């Protein structure tokens, strides 16, 4: 059969189906295979909050977008080259995300009258939409072909139907010329006790591949070469995984046992799941009765000399705030991870947002500053987490680590470090000396020493009441209170001396427009800046990891640009802090839709503000 192999630098595929159709698994397997092949890759799972939303409806559509390529990839793509739609609702919800000239693979069984009705498309079948005029549409009866491939299988009809996502996967592996091996191994491991299920899934996977091979309908196959990533050993990592591994690594490097107190919440729970698997690192996970117990148990553990960690998302963080204030008074290490989601209140549990920055920096009673560190991507989550732990332990303070739903569930290749190359983390322990022990004596960094129960002669009492300087005894003295408030603030400010200076990520270090970003907007801005630089725009990009305290030289960086554009997935929070701190008017770019920026949106805003 004649076939054309078209070379492509980057491809974006969007899998869309019912939330029970296995689109997340399909997307993850597709991702692993391409990562192993050597492509750079970025993913964006987008699913409903309901575990099984009403079948066949638009509300129940689950999507998984993945971009892979032979060049560097920083976002899961603005629009899709290939859309897989398992039913009418999936197409209706995602049609607009397909590029002109793109490919639609539609499971015709999902477009029968029942499905059209469920998707509220009785009047117009989305397959016949005008919007698909510039699109190559492949109608494939995936359901029928799956059943045919399993004619001899002893599985029930329902079980057979459940394998149809493997058909899609096999077919796409054919389309992109990829091996089935990694997925076959995955299936064999996952269903190791169910040989019939293994056989069925592998048969359907192969059937999908062979369908591409034998069906005359498809002539185009694509060739995406491995990416020119930095040489080295890579793995694929998801954001929550990166956080979990970062916590374990940092605890180990600090010589501390980790205690993780957590209450289940979307999208942070995967950190708990990951950590619970690694008890052989002496990780103690504690599924607490509520968010308050999660953080306070971690504080108790830190008092006992462990690394206390807790994680949650916005609503849970709100519940933890009083306890974070206690940790500020106690001056003990505590890492609080906030995997942000759309708010306020319960908000959009499965959607992403960056609207908890002001909560992180300011959201406590009293004068209660804490360091805030933000991760920017799945592959950087490890390093950001490691830094959060380092600051917390070496500066004896609670630290807030911000991630978000986009980072948490996204995946990308990660050139991981060797353990021996990680910065040492040195806890400052109190020791018994001739002199009387002073729990609140400080070193040059204004950090007090950690006295661990069990150490003879260092018995002491601490608490949430204001401390007398040095002794730590309860004090209501007015001058002492003012002094302690200032000392605690200065201690946090001084951390700026122990973090790197702000660097320019890309572009010029002075000129017309600086894009100042933080958190998961990194990828979209990075891609946008690359495009703008190609078109000779005078732009620079600075990305903040340290949000409190900010790098020492940030003010200077800002003065070197005529304009500063601050893109955020909120209604303008970083911009508040920057403007009040540095007296520099900035241009806000806000998106509050529960979905990440596209790079095109950033490019457009720069162009608008360029003149």
């Amino acid at each position: 059969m004649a076939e054309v192999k078209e070379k492509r630098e980057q491809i974006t595929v969007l899998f869309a189906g019912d939330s029970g159709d296995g689109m997340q698994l399909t997307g993850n397997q597709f991702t692993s295979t391409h990562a192993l092949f050597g492509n750079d890759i970025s993913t964006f799972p987008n699913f409903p909050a309901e575990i099984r939303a009403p079948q066949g409806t638009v509300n129940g559509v689950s999507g998984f977008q993945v971009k892979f390529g032979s060049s560097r990839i920083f976002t899961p793509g603005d629009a899709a080259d290939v859309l897989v739609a398992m039913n009418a609702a999936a197409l209706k919800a995602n049609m607009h995300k397909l590029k002109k000239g793109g490919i639609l693979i539609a499971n015709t069984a999902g477009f029968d009258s029942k499905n059209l009705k469920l998707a509220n498309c009785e009047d117009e079948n989305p397959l016949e939409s005008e919007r698909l005029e510039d699109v190559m549409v492949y109608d494939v009866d995936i359901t029928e072909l799956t059943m045919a491939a399993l004619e001899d299988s002893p599985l029930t009809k329902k079980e057979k139907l459940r394998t149809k996502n493997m058909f899609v996967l096999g077919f796409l592996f054919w389309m992109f010329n990829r091996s089935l091996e990694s997925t076959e191994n995955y299936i064999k491991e996952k269903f190791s006790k169910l040989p019939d299920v293994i056989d069925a899934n592998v048969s359907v996977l192969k059937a999908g591949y062979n369908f591409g091979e034998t069906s005359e309908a498809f002539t185009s196959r694509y060739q995406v070469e491995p990416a020119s990533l930095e040489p080295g050993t890579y793995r694929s990592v998801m954001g929550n995984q990166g956080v979990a591994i970062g916590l374990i690594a940092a605890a180990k490097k600090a010589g501390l046992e980790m205690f993780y107190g957590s209450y289940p919440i979307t999208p942070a729970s995967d950190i708990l799941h990951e950590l619970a698997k690694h008890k052989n690192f002496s990780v103690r996970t504690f599924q607490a009765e509520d968010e308050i117990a999660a953080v306070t148990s971690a504080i108790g553990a830190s008092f006992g000399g462990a690394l206390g960690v807790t994680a949650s998302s916005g609503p849970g963080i709100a519940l933890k705030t009083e306890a974070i204030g206690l940790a500020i008074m106690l001056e003990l290490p505590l890492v609080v991870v906030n995997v942000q989601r759309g708010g306020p209140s319960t908000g959009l549990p499965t959607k992403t947002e960056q609207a908890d920055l002001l909560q992180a920096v300011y959201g406590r009673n009293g004068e209660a500053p804490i360091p805030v560190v933000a991760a920017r991507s799945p592959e950087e989550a490890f390093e950001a987490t490691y830094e959060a732990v380092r600051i917390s332990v070496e500066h004896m303070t609670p630290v807030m680590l911000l991630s978000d739903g986009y980072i948490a569930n996204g995946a990308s290749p990660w050139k991981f470090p060797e353990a021996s190359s990680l910065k040492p983390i040195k806890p400052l322990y109190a020791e018994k000396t001739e002199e009387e022990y002073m729990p609140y004596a400080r070193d040059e960094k204004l950090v007090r020493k950690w006295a661990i129960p069990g150490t003879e002669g260092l018995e002491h009492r601490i608490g949430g009441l204001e401390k007398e300087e040095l002794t730590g005894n309860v004090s209501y003295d007015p001058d002492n209170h003012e002094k302690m408030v200032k000392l605690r603030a200065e201690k946090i400010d001084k951390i700026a001396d122990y973090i790197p200076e702000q660097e320019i990520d890309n572009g010029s270090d002075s000129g017309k427009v600086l894009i100042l970003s933080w958190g998961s907007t990194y990828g979209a801005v990075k891609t946008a800046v690359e495009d703008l630089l190609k078109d000779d725009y005078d732009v620079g990009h600075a990305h903040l990891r340290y949000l409190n305290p900010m790098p020492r030289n940030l003010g200077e960086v800002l003065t070197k640009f005529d304009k500063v554009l601050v893109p955020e997935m909120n209604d303008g929070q970083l911009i508040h802090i920057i403007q009040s701190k540095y007296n520099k008017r900035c241009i806000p770019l806000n998106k509050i839709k529960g979905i990440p920026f596209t790079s095109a949106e950033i490019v457009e805003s720069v162009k608008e503000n360029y003149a």
Partner: protein
Amino acid sequence: MSEVKEKKYKAKDFASDQEIRWCPGCGDYAILKQVQSAVAQTGKPKEEIVFISGIGCSSRFPYYMDTYGMHSIHGRATAIASGLKTARPDLSVWIITGDGDSLSIGGNHLIHLLRRNIDTNILLFNNEIYGLTKGQYSPTTPEGSHTKSSPMGVIDHPFNPISLALGADAGFIARTVDREPRHMKDIFLQADEHKGASFVEIYQNCPVFNDGAFNAYTDRGLKDENTLFIEAGKPMTFHKDKKGIVLDGLKPKVVDLTSDEYSVDDCLVHDPSDRTVAYILSQFFDNDKSADLPRVFGVIYSENRPTYEDQLSNQVELAIEEKGEGDLDALIAGPNTWYHQ
């Protein structure tokens, strides 16, 4: 596990240098003294003892103990202690809390600590009032009480703390009272001896906002007929053995032992391991006013079951046995890696 180091202490070795700031006549003084005496008697090294409190008058307690301690935030002592004991099973952890702290704002953490059976000693100072905030009713204030926040009488139905602990499957449940120093100390020692969560309710008089709340159990003229001090293996008699408790089916009743109708041999014998008996004793409470039953003091229930922290430590050991001590490089690399030229 750390080796057992026993030291010789006197009660005063546990007094800190801080000036005690409870109101004159507060029941807390007597409790502090007996706790100091009890921990001295255990011989545990003071550096391995931690007192954690929440907020309230009683929660000042850790400042007065020369051990490690934390005066934390309202209601959370139990949760903080849960984390501490889980991370450091080798420490002896005491929780100091009050009726508002542990049964109102911290009610959730208390019941979860009890069900998990974390080996801590919980001393609940029950004065049936909010003292530190100056006299509002608490979750144990009897219905109808007139307080600052209930000028027309309390309409909240109160908790029966012993029933609550029993309902949460606490492994050790006892009640004592601030006016019985020897009994208190004995209960504290038994609580400390018990492996698992030990729940001790202490009736504590607040002379300022709720004076005399427990007069019926402490006044010389009243206490004999109103209190039943129970001991394992002993028949339940009180009022100088003039009265006893017998079971009429499952219903307890007070009988006159001076008449010919009943003798000591008819009386219920206390068995702290018997849950049914514990349940019956927990019901000797104000809720059933018609029964005229005495208030019970002593160890009401005691059972041994595995502690949370031991089971978690076992899982950690098992994980190390099965997978080997964590290899950081292997963890960071994960199961699938590839090399990029």
